[in-house]
């Protein structure tokens, strides 16, 4: 170890960073440790280990099947939205970036406006009813696709800039039509940005509350995050169950994040910087 790395300034910096890590991590630890306590002990929010480990809390959370149903709904809706956004956004970004003319630039900014504007949820209810897809999975998939397309197009157009046109030439020489050119040359090269966009879609749908809260009146279609809202409404003072419920809901996202964070973090910043 180099001597300079032991200087007090450096030690001070590491201590500060570790203290800040504690500020982030302790709340998560609080959730985990309290989810195994009994009602009275959990209500004290202590960071001590449970005096009696109650694994039954989780049995209680899963009973009634609301959580499993929520998992299923979140998975189904995010997968649907993932397919629609990735396919439509990659096609659109490809044409927007490669053409790069007045019309496509205008369309690009038209999509980007959707990054800034708030969603008009109340009129969306009326629209979904009019289309006959209110309270359906298709309705939610289309809603999320519309909401997530602007960011995905933003991300993918930025990424397309890094793929030189020369790469397209090989396909053009082979006489590919536009569709084959896209699917056999461009799409495989876009794989990293597709992974990023997919992860962001999954996390956004999983974490979103406003969409299903306004748009779904049918409890059978609720995603996990809405199920937490209802769970807390029902068990407002049973913090052990609330913490257990929260733990069960955030765990999949946390696992996904820890495994694939390079894609999530770097993909997002890359998109944000290149735009």
């Amino acid at each position: 170890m180099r001597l300079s790395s032991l200087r007090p300034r450096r030690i001070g910096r590491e201590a500060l960073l570790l203290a800040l890590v504690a500020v982030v991590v302790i709340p998560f630890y609080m959730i985990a440790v309290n989810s195994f306590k009994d009602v009275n002990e959990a209500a004290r929010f202590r960071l001590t280990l449970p005096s009696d480990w109650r694994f039954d809390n989780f049995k209680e959370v899963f009973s009634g099947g609301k959580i499993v149903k929520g998992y299923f709904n979140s998975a189904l809706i995010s997968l649907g939205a993932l397919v629609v956004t990735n396919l439509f956004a990659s096609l659109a970004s490809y044409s927007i970036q490669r053409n790069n003319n007045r019309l496509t630039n205008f369309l690009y900014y038209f999509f980007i406006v959707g990054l800034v504007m708030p969603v008009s949820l109340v009129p969306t209810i009326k629209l979904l009813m009019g289309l006959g897809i209110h309270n359906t999975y298709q309705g939610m998939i289309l809603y999320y696709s519309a909401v997530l397309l602007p960011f995905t197009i933003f991300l993918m157009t930025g990424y397309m800039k890094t793929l030189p046109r020369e790469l397209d030439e090989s396909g053009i020489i082979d006489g590919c039509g536009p569709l084959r050119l896209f699917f056999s040359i461009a799409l495989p090269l876009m794989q990293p940005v597709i992974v990023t966009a997919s992860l962001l879609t999954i996390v956004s749908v999983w974490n979103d509350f406003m969409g299903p809260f306004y748009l779904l009146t049918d409890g059978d279609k609720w995603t996990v995050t809405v199920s937490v809202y209802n769970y807390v409404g029902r068990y407002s003072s049973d913090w052990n169950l609330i913490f257990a419920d929260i733990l069960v809901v955030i765990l999949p996202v946390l696992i996904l994040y820890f495994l694939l964070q390079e894609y999530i973090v770097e993909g997002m910043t890359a998109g944000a910087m290149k735009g």
Partner: protein
Amino acid sequence: MKRHVRYPLYFIAPAFAVYFALFVFPALSGFAYSFTDWSAYSEETKWIGLDNYRQLFSEGVLGLAIKNTLLYALVVTIFVNLFGLILALLLNRNSRLGKFYRTSFYTPVVIAPLIVGYLFTAIYNPEQGILNEALRFFGLGRFAVDWLNDSRYALFSIMLTELWRSSGFAMVIYLAGLKTIPQDLLEQASVDGAGAFRKFRNVTFPLLAPSFTVNLLLTVINSLKVFETVLVLTNGGPGYDTEVFNTLIFRNFSRGNWGYATASGLVLTIIVSVIAVTFLRILRKREVEL
């Protein structure tokens, strides 16, 4: 050589159709609905002109919601960016634990804001919550207040929650910006005798301009749209002391006054667009091209 259409415009059509139908159209139809008495209580919807807006502006809650939302957005934007920048500067040197720190600080960003709200309901609990326990432990017991039910602190507590939640997001964008700054520029500045502060002010800060633009814009816009944390932590209370736009819209919506809720939504849309456009104008001007 014959020119083929290699990149046809119809590739944009599917995305455009979905986006237009489910994002743009509701916004436009919302504009129309805001002039009607569309509600849960009657089958028919009548045109009532500016009545919704007249009522909205005379009710007084709108003024409070505007004030709270803007104050919230201002404070959150300043401090999220300040914290994010400080974290990024701390992590920019190569440290063995760099990745561990970055992973930790970004973790709250991937948690649903609704759940962050519940988490902080527990943390802010006046008697047993870990915030007050920690304050008492460090001998700062007199700062252990009722964070959410005291109107002096309620909005502040929501801001603090957002700082915890999204500083990590600003951090990663600043980190990415710092990586683009050429090392030799900083070395040259050192050779010229610039200290750490002058190097930051004259080299790092101006070259970070694109990251500032992105970060400030994203934080302002997201904080104007704040909803879940407020809903869970205070539900706009005590009184209307923490009422923000989205809680106001939701309140009107759940009362069944849909036309009225849409009108409140439109006011938010207008404020967001004005602020976003102004921000972009100002920030783009001072960006330095590398």
